């Protein structure tokens, strides 16, 4: 999948609400009419996902630009 990106769970971070340590969760992200599943660190209990700075400013930004040019 050309748009795919994954992200390891960073250590030390817990869900603010449930207190659970983050683990890889599968979420469906969406932009400009395209959507696809990615693995992101998130709360195994409530599903809250974390997009960290490295991902947001790196691979995710690239994919955003690509989809905007489509």
């Amino acid at each position, binding site marked *: 999948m050309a748009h795919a990106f994954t992200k390891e769970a960073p250590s030390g*971070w817990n869900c*603010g609400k449930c207190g659970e340590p*983050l683990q890889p969760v599968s*979420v469906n992200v*969406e932009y400009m009419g395209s959507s696809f599943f990615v693995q992101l660190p998130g709360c195994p209990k409530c599903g809250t*996902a974390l997009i*960290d*700075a490295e991902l*947001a400013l790196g691979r995710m930004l690239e994919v955003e630009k690509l989809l905007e*040019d489509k």
Partner: protein
Amino acid sequence: MEQSTLESFESLCTQDASPACQSNCPIQVEAAMVIAHLAQGRVDEARKSLERHMPLAGLCGWLCEGPCLPACLRGRLNEPVDIPLLERHAVSAGRGTKPFPMPQTKHRAALVGSGLSALVCAQGLAIKGHKAMVFHSGPIGATLNDLPPGTLPPRALAEAIELLEYLKVGFRETEGGPPDPAGLLADHGAVFLALDDPWAAPLAPAGGAADPVTRGSGTDGIFLGPGATETGRVEAMSAGKKAAASIDRLFQGVNPASAREREAVGPSRLAVDLGGQASAPKAAMSEPPTAAEAQAEAGRCLACSCLKCLAPCPFLRSRKGYPKKYAREFYNNIITAFGIRHANRHINSCAECGLCGQICPNGADMGKFVGLARADMVASSHMPVSAHEFALEDQEHANSPGISFVRPAPGRDRADYLFFPGCQLLGAYPGTALAAYRYLNGALGGSVGLWSGCCGAPGRWSGRGRLTARATESFRALWRQSGGGAVILACPSCASFFAAELPDVPALGLWPLLDTLPPPPGATAIAVAMVVHDPCSARLDAEGQRAVRSMAAKIGQKTIEPRMTGRHTLCCGFGGLASEANPDMGREYALERTRESPGPILAWCSVCRDRFLAEGHPSLHPLDLLFPPADIGARLGSRPPGLSARREGRALFRDLALGTVWLENPPKEKTMPPNVDIPGEVLADMESRRILAADVAATLEVAKKNGPVFANPETGRLIASHRPRQVTFWVEYEERPDGTLLVHRAWCHRMVVPGVPGEGAESPASLEGYARTGGRV
């Protein structure tokens, strides 16, 4: 975009017009290309380039007299490039290629006489698959057999004849006089009379010269070789080549006269600058020249091209191209139905500054074309949403009810004049802008009102036609309400916006007006001479340019003119929102100015000043000199106010103006909650991604209400997130023991990720070009 729009722009850029050597060649040889290969020692490629336009190059390459030589531009500096000599070198050193004939057609042509024109014509017909029969008397080649010794290598003519025979050209030795052309037409579709063969010469029609374009004789089907005055060998080649093309058209049922413009000999349309070209006299050469000598001679070619507009423009230099080529790419980008639109970013990187249009000898303005391309992208919802979003939101902010205001002068109910400082100028230094207002109002008898807002230039630059129409409508309404006085514009971009979109609103430039008033009492000058930078949107505002310099002189400020000034001034990178869509390119524009400025810059647009300051180049706005802050030296070398500071500056301007001039008590705009601490480097890092302090504050507000989204008990760090519009913001922070929130980092993304808190928020910007995301994102 209509194709005709593209074509009319393309016709202005003559960069790919033939250079003088080619436009003066009777057989359109691309001499510059042949020479370029020779200069690199690529003899086979050189010969191949020659063969593209010169038939039977192994023969003809020895024979051209060089009628192009007087036109060669090297000849304006030294002797012209010896093009005939280089052609001879290409055919002697380069390997020839066998032409590949087309499949045989049913058409037959008769050629009477076997001079050079006949051989060339026969070749042209044969490669098109037509049957050519050459009627001759005596040796094939006629006078080519009598050339002075040494003109041709021994086998050149024989090899040319062998090549023609390979191409199935027939040769028929004929007894007695030449056959009657009219009779030949009975079983040939066309007849060519090679009048350069003395045997065929008597067939020349009495008094009738050949049509210079088609070589037609006036009798249908009969075409003429060189006449009595066309004695040059290259003229014979040209006549044979043109006749072959005419006969081929005739056989295909096409008018022989159509689409022949490229064959005309004439001056080149290419604009070539000879300034700065080094002298290169012709060196003595052996006969024949050695490979090294030929290569050196080829090296004297100027490789004539235009590309004048590229030198000062980082956008035009950024890819291997020139305006005509880019326009074609942009057009193709627009009409792309499926797949990636690769040129989007490039289209959005032009500053629409108009410099190229001033430099180009034909006035080709890439910026205007880019403007049309952007409007098209917006109209078809293919403008990348992120490209201009921040600037459009900034425009909305400057015109929002809590920020924008219009007031007639205190104590008046209508304004004779309305001072419009512009959203960037008043946001950067609200105090300076307000001082200018007070001074103007005093000097003009208390008749000047004040108007804070954004003109709408960002919408226009980004191609948003509907947004611009709405902006101008509400502007016009406000202006009428205020009494319909003359608007005094401080910002050159506002001025060009008003001129284009609000031509019915009387507008005055600030500088010509100030120049009629005595300088304000506190005005000051700095000790060093300043480089005057005319903003690109004022490149045609000669009156404004004059007035700024006049004001500087009156207050004793010494100035220097940069190389690119007045109508040739450079853009700082803000124009066309280039720096929004492409920040790196935006910096290149600014550096183009700062690099060549030997002193501090005096820029009469506040954005220009701030962009030069951001590159570390000391800069001031002339208002900084007229209404100086307490420490002008500090402003001269300062870091410019950032995006957040500018927004706060607009709110401050409103508070200051309404509070101290109109003595109103305006409700304070909410600013940063006092318990958030954003260190300077964190703020700079945020602003490079267009994240405002207010965005961070709003995100932390959400966390205060709902708790942080993530927590790291080891480090004590917390993460908050918030999606107030089509962007999700993230803030990593910690809570200090005293309760202040220390921000470590903030970042954002546009993608929608379910499970990220704040997703699903409404999309407040109802701007055009967001159509594709609709209410979904």
